[in-house]
């Protein structure tokens, strides 16, 4: 059976839609990770300093 079969096409379409949604989420998370790295989180700061920084940013 290949993707020309209706069942396989439906499965592929569902998987594609799911992956596209997951990709959008992953891109947003990647932006956050890059922003954290630009600030030095987690490598350059202690846990206390990171907590202090988030407290400042959340205010």
């Amino acid at each position: 059976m290949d993707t020309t079969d209706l069942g396989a096409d439906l499965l592929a379409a569902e998987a594609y839609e799911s992956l596209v949604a997951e990709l959008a989420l992953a891109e947003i998370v990647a932006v956050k990770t890059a922003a954290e790295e630009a600030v030095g989180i987690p490598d350059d700061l202690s846990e206390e300093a990171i907590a202090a920084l988030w407290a400042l940013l959340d205010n």
Partner: protein
Amino acid sequence: MKTKQIVLTALTIALVAGGAAFAGPGGNGKSNGRGASDNGRNSNGAAASELKWRNAAHASAQAFSNASPNSAVGILATLKNASAAADEALELAGLESGDTVRTVEEIQTLLVLLTEPALSSDEIQALINQA
């Protein structure tokens, strides 16, 4: 799922547009001065000392919205906005901040595999099981 996809795409666009809004002259000098002056009032002196330039997080909301993207406040503003967008997107997806999310590269690889012709239904099911 389609709704989630649209919402997530909208969040991505909002995030990119938000980043552009931080561009502007003069943000760096103002915000760095503010952060430095507030440093002594921080109750956690050790953390404040360790934060160094990141004490610019004391800056006002106006400084955050007007900061140049490469300034201390601009970098922190990007982090603040990116974090809020990520938290919202994760919540919409039914996940939490600490949950593992596959990388963009991993997902793109799966998308390429999925869209290649002549995948058998078993192969497609295997991809779905990975998702």
